């Protein structure tokens, strides 16, 4: 069953949903820059970004009533946004590793 967002929660729902994507991108950005530059503060910023994403997901879990079957969506977001940048980083390293691939 679907329980719609309540009127009082409209703004926070829109805002938190947007923040999920933006903080997900910031997490990916800082994560990649940390692995590229090895500057510790970037790593902290990456996890702060993910923490913001985590909180935002919790907020929409409350406001959008994401319980029961909808828990799948919450887990998919938390796991997906956490692991995808890591997976892509490993793919980047792997695809660029072979000799002769660096430049045309």
């Amino acid at each position, binding site marked *: 069953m679907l329980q719609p*967002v309540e009127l009082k929660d409209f703004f926070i729902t829109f805002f938190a949903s947007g923040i999920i994507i933006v903080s997900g991108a910031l997490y990916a950005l800082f994560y990649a820059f940390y692995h590229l530059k090895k500057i510790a503060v970037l790593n902290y910023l990456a996890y702060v970004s993910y923490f913001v994403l985590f909180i935002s997901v919790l907020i929409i879990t409350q406001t959008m009533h994401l319980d029961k079957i909808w828990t799948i969506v919450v887990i998919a977001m938390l796991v997906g946004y956490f692991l995808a940048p890591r997976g892509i980083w490993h793919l*980047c390293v792997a695809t660029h590793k072979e000799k002769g691939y660096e430049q045309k």
Partner: protein
Amino acid sequence: MTINQFNTQNLNVGQKLAIKYFSVAVVLFAAQILFGLIAGLQYLQPDLFYGVLDFNVNRTVHINAMIIWMLYGFIGASYWLLEDETGISIVGIKWGHFSFWLLTVAVIIVVLVYLFIQWGPGTDATIWFINEGREYIEAPRLADIGIVICMLIFFYNVAATVSKGKVTGITGVLTLDLVALAGLYLAGMFYTTNISLDQFWWWWVIHLWVEATWEVLVGCIMAWGLITTLGASRKIVTTWLYIEVALMFGAGILGLGHHYFWIGTPEYWFTVGGLFSALEPIPLVAMVVHAVYDSGKHGFKSNNHPAMAWLIAHAFGNFFGAGVWGFMHTLPQINLYTHGTQWTASHGHLAFFGAYATIIIAMFYFAVQKWRGGVTIRGDLVDSGWKWKWSLALLNIGVMGMTIALLISGYEQSQIERAIGGSTWLGYFQAQIHPWFVEGLVWRQIMGYITALGFILLVWDLLTIGKKEPLELESKVA
């Protein structure tokens, strides 16, 4: 080879055809903006052109022009890169030219019919000759058949050329994608008397074209663009094209479910649509990693700065328009209130511009560069490149401004009309006269004018950029 002036001798056979497609695309882009401005004005002055050029007609032309100019852009882009990729002349190029004229004549007839014959009862005959009645693809069925024939000829040109020439990752993906491009359009052509069934198939065209086949086409163009402008490794780019296609199809196909929330489909579509919609932005977010990796590991230099700038605008526009603006209202718990309001228009404006218009404009700049004999278009242009920089800025500011203005109107609409008014007529009219809604639309109009100004500059720049560059610049090509 002739430097500095437009000369088709600078182009291969496919590129000559591509120029035709690009030229019509620019004209239709102008039509999209013009009819969008008129439709926007009609929100503010509802009696404007009443009975002469009604809002429903303007809106139809505005939206259809967008779909078709982008289609022209994609077809042109594919012809543009095909001979470079396969190493041979395009097979059946005469059919390609025939297809271009067939499509263009069909488009002209359809637009004229939209403008002059859109009243009277809807009958079986009007489905064939006047209007099929499905938003975005209103073209009558006769024109639909023409479009499918053109897509099949386009597919034949590409598939036959690829099969006889060199098969690359880009051309392989492109060929397979064209099967889906032509095939999915068929889903929008049959008619059922059950509105739920009708909508079910209609979304196959709208969603799966836009969020699957078009995205793959864009992936192919982007891959070719990265190799051409930045000298990126073909093997890496191709590998990433495969990864991108897998990620996009993985989340995008069943993301279709977010259009099935309110059309009478079974309840499980709420969960399916919700889950895959939540996953859809993940590839966009993850690709940030790849962009950072490449910018850090490679010292790429571009010989076409405007094209490069528009490719960057594409990355950001796609992320914000499709990712952020899409996810803000995609889960059914909130979509119940936002669906079909100006929220949707806000998302649509930024997503279509960011994901598609930007990359086609980048292709225009590639085309102009080669058409002028391969001049270098870098930061040291004679006029310092003010026209392309201002057109880039104005178009992006204009579209972003329209997006935010529509967001404000849509937010008000979702509250007053939907949540409080319960989607009643009273709620609808209360929302339409609310100051937030009206002011949002005023600002949308102002931002529309800025967009139009950016477009005029863009056309001026496309016609003049590289014209006065000293010939010695050619030696600087990276």
